[in-house]
């Protein structure tokens, strides 16, 4: 992915609904051909941002440039995008063919060219034999693909997807994820998808924009976001994260209950109250050597079987009442004979510990 040409440039976007600020100073760049996900809980402003980009609800202030053109104030019909909604919004009284050709018929294309384009699009989404059916006669997943074909009909430079998979059941969703991603890669169209599903964002996006309360919390690749969450919010929202209050006890060390842990303390000074965060899968219970740093012996309070792994609830006096989760493979639990009530030395690798300021 070397094409770092900026395609969409969003600068200082504000959106206010009366007293409520839905978007606060949002700036962002999307590169040509990139797949970007806006991720966040409901009400975080991700859909508002998408609708501003589409021109469906134009921002209160701030600018949007697409492909070098200032589109900030333009109505949707003068912008260049295709959109798929969560509800698909397929016209129920028109056949699949008519749905897909809906926009084409309006630009005075010759009939034969329209037909060819529609056939091509339906082939692309694997529905070439369904053209004469009505939307209600198709499954949810098929309807989704029709919506995608319709959005791509006018070969837009930008594809906007507003929670496109939320209305589908889990199995279809996983399948369609791949399909949408493949399609996007084949067509090379710059794509923005809004979702509240972190798994969807992690698996599909080239870059993720995590939003909360109308501001961008972090922008980065899925790996960056997962392993280096920029804020406690991102850490908490994506994946599972243990949070334990602690105190910085010096450069490179932090005090959690009665235990001292070594970790990076950049940006904090001695005596700062912090939140110490580590992911359950990063808590290590094997390959420990005498003298390794950050080893604490904890009690197994509870073991929850989750199929491919166990989630252990660890606690002990040393944590002064706080508990944390650790994920252990089935194999490990069996080998080490871990059970409720057993005492277990675990290691907290310094590079996986994150500190956040107490808020």
């Amino acid at each position, binding site marked *: 992915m070397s094409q770092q040409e900026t395609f969409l440039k969003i*600068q*200082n976007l*504000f959106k206010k609904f009366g007293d409520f600020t839905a978007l606060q100073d949002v700036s962002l760049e999307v590169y040509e051909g990139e797949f970007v996900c806006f991720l966040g809980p409901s009400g975080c402003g991700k859909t508002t941002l998408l609708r501003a980009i*589409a*021109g*469906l609800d*134009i*921002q*209160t*202030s*701030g*600018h949007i*440039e697409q492909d*070098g*053109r*200032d589109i*900030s*104030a*333009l*109505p*949707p*019909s*003068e912008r260049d*995008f*295709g*959109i798929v*909604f969560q*509800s698909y*919004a397929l*016209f*129920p*009284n*028109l056949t699949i063919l008519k749905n897909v050709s*809906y*926009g084409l018929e*309006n*630009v005075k294309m010759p009939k034969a060219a329209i037909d060819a384009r529609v056939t091509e699009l339906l082939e692309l989404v694997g529905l070439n034999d369904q053209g004469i059916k*009505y*939307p*209600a*006669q198709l499954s949810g997943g098929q309807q989704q693909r029709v919506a995608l074909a*319709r*959005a791509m*009909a*006018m070969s837009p430079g930008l594809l906007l997807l507003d929670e496109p998979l939320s209305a589908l059941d889990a199995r279809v969703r996983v399948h369609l994820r791949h399909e949408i991603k493949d399609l996007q890669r084949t067509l090379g169209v710059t794509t923005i998808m809004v979702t509240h599903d972190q798994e969807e964002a992690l698996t599909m996006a080239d870059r993720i924009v995590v939003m909360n309360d109308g501001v961008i919390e972090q922008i980065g690749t899925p790996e960056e976001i997962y392993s280096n969450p920029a804020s406690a919010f991102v850490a908490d929202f994506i994946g599972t994260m243990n949070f334990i209050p602690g105190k910085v006890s010096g450069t490179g060390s932090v005090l959690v209950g009665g235990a001292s842990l070594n970790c990076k303390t950049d940006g904090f000074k001695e005596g700062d109250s912090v939140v110490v965060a580590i992911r359950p899968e990063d808590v290590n219970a094997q390959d420990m050597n005498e003298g390794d740093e950050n080893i604490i012996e904890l009690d197994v309070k509870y073991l929850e079987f989750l199929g491919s792994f166990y989630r252990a609830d660890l606690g002990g006096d040393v944590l002064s009442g706080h508990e944390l989760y650790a994920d252990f493979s089935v194999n490990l639990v069996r080998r080490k004979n871990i059970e409720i009530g057993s005492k277990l030395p675990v290691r907290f690798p310094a590079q996986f510990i994150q500190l956040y300021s107490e808020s």
Partner: protein
Amino acid sequence: MTDTVSTTITTSPAAPIRPTLSRDDIIMRLSMGAIAIFLIFAIILPLYTMLSKSFENKAGDFIGLQNFAEYFSTPALFLSIFNSLEISIIATFIVLITAFIYGYALTRSCIPLKRFFRLVSLVPLLTPSLLGGISLVYWFGNQGVAKGLLMGEKIYGPIGITIGSSYWVFPHVLMIVITALSITDARLYEAAESLRTSKLKTFFTVTLPGCKYGLISAGFVAFTLIFTDFGVPKVIGGNYNMLATDIYKQVIGQQNFQMGAVVSVVLLIPAIIAFTVDRIVQRKQVALLSARAVPYTPKSDMMRDTVLFLFCLIVAIIILGMVGMAQYAALVKFWPYNLTLTLDNYNFDVMDGGGWDAYYNSIRMGLYTAFFGTIVIFFGAYLVEKGRGFGAGRTALHMIAIIPLAVPGMVLGLAYIFFFNNPANPFNFIYGTMAILVLASVTHFYTVSHLTAVTALKQMDPEFESVSQSLKTPFYKTFSRVTVPVCMPAIFDVSIYLFMNAMTTVSAVVFIYASDTTLASIAVLNMDDAGDIAPAAAMALMIAYTCLAARGIHAVITWQLHKKTQAWRAR
């Protein structure tokens, strides 16, 4: 617009963005403006003119409250207020209790012939309210067949008005009651039963509270309809004065338009109060509904079902008796002396009232009202519900569209005289034509049609409009290709509603028809006035049969449409 390739953003980032309007936006806003102007000219300005007339003397000078002072110092006039209130309250209770038991039988019991009872209950909707009065004359009038039942009392007056009003308001109230009784949660009854609650206690603790708001709403609707009705008291009221007949007497009898306006204001105030309270109550009803409610299925109960069946039977017989007597009387040579059957009474052309032309005028008026009314109302509702921009303006449009429901037909008609008969009005030319009748009918029945259309539009995906914008398709194209076809059933419902009401209304048109645009319902009124009661009954029933036929056609079209669109409506 095409050369906006400027990459340099000169304005400061905090400067608010002023969205550029597309051609589509401009057309949409112009359409909204057009609908707004229509509603202002059809509702707001006439009502305003009427209100101001009540503060003017005959010469048109402002005289403050002098007219009102005169009104309240004339017992013959202001006593009507008490008459109207008394009759309305009594009749409201009668019809509410009857409709509740009838509706309860239809929704919560296992009586046979439910479909029949439901159909019969709708019969009063087919005729002008005048018919109830006419029929009562034949039953209990001076030469009535069942006169003895009144034990010396006269039907002309409060008794007749109460019975006649209860008769024609019955279906309106019943529909609300049935809706209220239908929205219940079976789980509440299961819970009551499992707690060993007695049936009587269950009725008072579950059933009644559950439909409380519906009953209150039905009560207000009944009250308003009876309070503002003109047809029943006109025919059967005798010398008993009611507000609605007072307006008629002031305007038609004494040509005292200012006093007519004063009475209109007096009539309008309780109607508006009732209307406002009703809307507040209805809002509460919605909050009561839970999406997970389980529908209630009645279990049979011999005792209860028998009693309810007999009750329904009696009500149905009364309703059919009213229509049946009118039809019989219409076919009789000379009531009550010569009972040989004849079609003489259908020879309308030899009577006062406009003859068969009036009937054909009514059909034309009904069709125009249905056609133009549906177009304007549906398009207006679309702009209110799916329009872009003018947010506050759209809310205002919606509120204006609600007003006509609170305005009695006579008040609207009188307002139209004041407004359109003014030579300075650019629309003065529609005065005395078919156009003003159609306009009055569309306006008078605007609210219910508007709400039906809005409900249908609300069920459509709000993103259809967004999608068509993204596909660069103008809104009117999506409106005609998607919105209208999908809403076709609601559109047909609105048009049949408008047609039937235009056919049967008297009050909205009684002041504004001209000699060459007289209508069937007006003919009923005038023939009755002239003493030609049998022809009046005959004409009233012609209206009923026409409405019935229209309903039939509507049913066939709806069924055909359903068959044709089944492919895409299938779920």
